[in-house]
């Protein structure tokens, strides 16, 4: 209980720190939103009126206080560029990114786990070197390069996958929530779900491949180490097959450290959505963030940063809890 309270207190402090830093940074770095929209003929009075209209005329501390008062009640203000409530915009866009990130994570785990197990089974052979070499290449290529490569392959050379968006605009009707994929699957609208999945295929793959490579490297190293332990040797003497040794004996002990690091890497994956969503014109919070920065939309940027901060804190908390649940030594102190 104490641990949970401590972590919650830390989370609040972290978010408060993030809020202050982003608020000050936005107003210190060049790029005044009013300068971006004033007309060439605007007089100083016109500029002052526009600044007042967006609440940017008050002293910095007062601006922060007003924003903070609203933020603790979930009110992040009105977006300068979208003219909509920031919280509403974030809640509308977050599901798109969450579906993409979760799908990419799931794919990365499946790919990473499979290749790591195969690599472990092939240890000491030439094929292991091939797997390690290829994995090294996958590790070195960032998600946005994968995105561009996938565009060339699956959208231009072999146009089998849709390139942009989240769903075919002709099918985009009648969603009760913003979790399009989950909703269409749960309501049995499989044609719609397939269309959404086909739109998500390339961004998912682009995001998952680098993470899968990280999982392969970590898990394979842990598996190889586990395969040398006495309990594995004992199981081998009992006549267990290699595959059974890896899956039943080694994997359970090797997965802990990998899981912890995968959690950390998942936060990087979410960070990667910013560029990947842009390339695929995917309407998540990453794509939104780029427009917010271009337009110097202060309320929206502040809301986005707070949301990203909260997501990262929650992921780290969830990973800690899962690792503790899987590891009896941590669970019992």
């Amino acid at each position, binding site marked *: 209980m104490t641990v949970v309270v401590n972590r919650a207190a830390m989370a609040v402090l972290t978010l408060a720190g993030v809020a202050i830093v982003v608020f000050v940074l936005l107003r210190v770095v*060049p*790029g*005044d*939103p009013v*300068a*971006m*929209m*004033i*007309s*060439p*003929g*605007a007089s100083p*009075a*016109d*500029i002052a*009126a*526009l600044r007042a*209209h967006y609440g940017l005329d008050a002293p910095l501390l007062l601006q922060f206080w007003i924003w903070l008062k609203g933020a603790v009640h979930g009110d992040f203000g009105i977006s300068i*560029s*979208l*003219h*909509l409530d920031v919280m509403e*915009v974030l809640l509308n*866009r977050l599901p798109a990114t969450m579906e993409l990130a979760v799908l990419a994570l799931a794919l990365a785990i499946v790919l990473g786990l499979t290749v790591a197990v195969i690599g472990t089974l092939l240890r000491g052979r030439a094929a292991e070197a091939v797997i390690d070499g290829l994995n090294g290449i996958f590790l070195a290529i960032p998600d946005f390069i994968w995105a561009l490569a996938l*565009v*060339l392959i699956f*959208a*231009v050379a072999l*146009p*089998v*996958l*849709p*390139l*942009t*968006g*989240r769903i075919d*605009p*002709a099918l*985009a009707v009648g969603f009760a929530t913003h979790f399009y994929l989950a909703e269409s699957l749960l309501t049995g609208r*499989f*044609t719609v*779900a*397939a269309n959404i*999945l*086909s739109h998500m*295929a390339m961004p998912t793959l682009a995001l998952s491949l680098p993470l899968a490579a990280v999982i392969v490297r970590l898990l394979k190293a842990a598996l190889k180490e586990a395969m040398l332990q006495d309990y594995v040797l004992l199981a081998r003497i009992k006549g267990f097959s290699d595959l059974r040794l890896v899956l039943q004996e080694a994997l359970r002990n090797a997965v802990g450290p990998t899981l912890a690091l995968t959690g950390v890497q998942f936060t990087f994956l979410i960070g990667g959505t910013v560029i990947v*969503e*842009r*390339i695929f*014109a*995917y*309407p*998540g919070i990453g*794509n*939104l963030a*780029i*427009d917010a920065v*271009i*337009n110097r*939309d202060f309320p929206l940027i502040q809301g986005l940063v707070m949301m990203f901060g909260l997501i990262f804190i929650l992921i780290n908390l969830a990973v800690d809890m899962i690792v503790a649940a899987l590891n009896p030594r941590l669970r019992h102190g």
Partner: protein
Amino acid sequence: MPDFTRRQALAAGSGLIASLLAPVRGARAAVGETLTIAFNVNLPSFDPTVGPSSVNPTIQAIYRSVFDQYIGQKPDLSFQPGLLTGWGWNDDKTKVWMDVRSGVTWHDGSAFTPEDVVWSISRIGKPDSGNPVSFIWAGINNFQVQGNRITADVVQYDPVLFKWMAFLTGYVLPKAYYEKVGPQGFEKQPIGTGPYKVDAYEGNAYLRLKANPTYWGGKPAFETVVFKFVPDATSRVAEIESGSSDVTLEVPYEEYDRLKAKPGLKGVTTPISDIGMIFITNVAPMLDKNVRLAAHHAIDKQGIIKRLLRGYGVAIDTLEAPQYDAFDKTIKVPYDPALATKLLAASGFSKEKPVKFTIQTTRGFKPKDYEMIQAIVGMWRNVGIDAEIEIYEIAKHFELRMSHKLAPAAFYNWGNAIGDPTTSTGFAMFSKSPHSAWHSDDLDAKIGPLWGEKDEKKRIQGWKDVDRYIAEQGYVIPLLQFTQPILFKADLKVTPNVSGALQPTLVTKAS
């Protein structure tokens, strides 16, 4: 949650896989009743009268699809009746009159009235409205409506008032509907009188429009128009190459040349009302006229267009493009490196002892912007100018320009879709404008009287004289008029728009 039998689950699964593997629209699929445009910017807001998107020239293509402007504009920048069928001033320019089109309805079926016009102008004329050009709309007040004619008093005479009615933020919004739903309600469900109705919208993804069957200008050519928001140029190239979109724009010129040669695709380019220029700020060493003029004469604009932009662009020597009202082809600042060297020598500078300053530029904001500045810096080096390049974001440019803190030289692009000299030379060079960089009394004295000049011929000639003076003094370095590339499927016909707005109404099926 529905219950599934194993057979249903298997069928659904195979359907899911089959749908996933089904090819997307064939690369050369014929255009049907839906026109899909891979658009280069996102649409942040539906209100065309307030906020940053209201002054974004590219987005006007979408606004003009849903809303109507007071006064319409043809693709060659000339004006035509819009929601106003007639307009003008009284003899002493103390009053304006506007005749409102009758028989027009809003997308919700309600009638469009002169009150909508009065309310629209009054609303954005208030300084606290969030309209970036409220000073224009505040120039008339005390509206009187008699039948379909509106008259108003002129508070501040502005010869460009009616041109602004076809320009940024010059849109008529529905008074009754807007007041009923409020600003946020309007964002969620906008209505206009335009050729298309908003059918579905997902920010950063797409906008789906349906034809307005009762549009006063006639039913549009396509039943459905989809704008896909694809800001990444590589993705736009892939969209048109794969056949996923029917039309796209603003792709790299290399890709334009490659794709227009492919079977099933066509391309069109047109010089648009967007120019590349170098602002000169009145700080050392630019206070020296010889340095300013040398910097201009040393630039081979044709060479830049030919080698960097593959021939796409039009060299200019004033801030007026050939389609603008005050364009004067006799004003020339020729490429003459020998003259540049001589001018610099007169001020004590040479290749061995160069004059030094910083030039700021964006990178990737406009086609080959950074590469152009690199080339210019190379040309300058050959005559005795040692310029250091500083890259900045466009947002920083705006802030520095507003606070008059730009470097001695700064690259920028200037749009002027109504082609009037006030909205190019005027606002770029008059020191009271927050968007000007060169501030000097001599120039202000020449520009000042032109703002309120009531004789149109005299006004335009006055601006031409100002442009000539600026060229002689070297107060700015105009570079080129940008050319907009548009790619489309061969079974379409696209009429290019000099304003740069790719409006769906300018796309038809090829006969």
